[in-house]
């Protein structure tokens, strides 16, 4: 059984980490989670990015956040990637497999997966 004691142990480990995070210079992955995004399948896409970041041990450098409707409902699920000093990249019609690929090739490898981007539609 999961216990609160176990949660306390995680907390103690976290306490040292929290101070060193700097979301201003790090990468932000933003997933649209309005009605349109949720209906189109954004929840598992968001969960996949969170899992990829956690598995890669990159939660200090990369934040995954949610946003509302950005007005291109027909392209949902929409994922925006913000990296310091670079243009925003908008990925459209995302799913779990595409999220895995974007994480591996773009977030970790630095190569934008152009076939999934907005400009390509």
């Amino acid at each position, binding site marked *: 059984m999961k216990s609160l004691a176990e949660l306390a142990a*995680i*907390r103690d480990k976290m306490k040292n980490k929290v101070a060193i995070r700097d979301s201003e210079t790090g990468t932000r992955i933003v997933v649209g989670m309005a009605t349109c995004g*949720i*209906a189109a399948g954004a929840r598992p896409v968001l969960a996949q990015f969170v899992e990829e970041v956690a598995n890669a041990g990159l939660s200090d450098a990369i934040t995954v956040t949610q946003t509302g409707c950005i007005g291109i409902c027909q392209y949902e699920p929409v994922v925006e990637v913000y990296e310091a000093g670079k243009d925003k990249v908008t990925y459209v019609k995302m799913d779990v497999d595409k999220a895995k690929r974007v994480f591996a090739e773009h977030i970790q490898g630095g190569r934008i997966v152009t076939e999934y981007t907005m400009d390509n539609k």
Partner: protein
Amino acid sequence: MKELSLNILDVTENSVSAGAKNIEVSLIEDEKGLLTLTIGDNGCGMTPEVVKSVIDPFYTTRTTRKVGLGVPLLKMAAEQTGGSIDIKSEVGVGTTVTATFDTKSIDFTPIGDMVSTMTTLIMGAPDRDFEYIHRKPGAEVTLSTLQLREVLGDVSLGEPEIIAWIKDYLTEQYNNFGGTN
């Protein structure tokens, strides 16, 4: 929506947007197969005129565009089973959305993955408190972020490691719950 849990995620986001500090999500199933969903908050609330219009798909408080489909989709999901929706709200006090469903109806949308819905909500608004309960005869799943916060101190509920713990905590409870509808 493919799962009721997605409607719940969507409509509960309204409570977050309303600035609520405390948000209650409850799913209570009785022995006759009646499911009552309650989403209650202490957010900014709505005037009676706004409450009347909120079930209209072409009503929204947003100024950027003019369609809000969250509540109408939940209403449809309830009514197609023979159930109903009720919204009680008071400005400055909060809002409670109650929807009932006949789970035996052929048009009942399965509840689906409530673990993902709750972790997504907490991740998106780690500064709010969520009280979650899902009860059916002989079994229940509960989560109180207030209780977790007592343990966590100033460590955010939104930290990936904490979300992972909450996910496991709820999944474990659902394993003993005997599956959802």
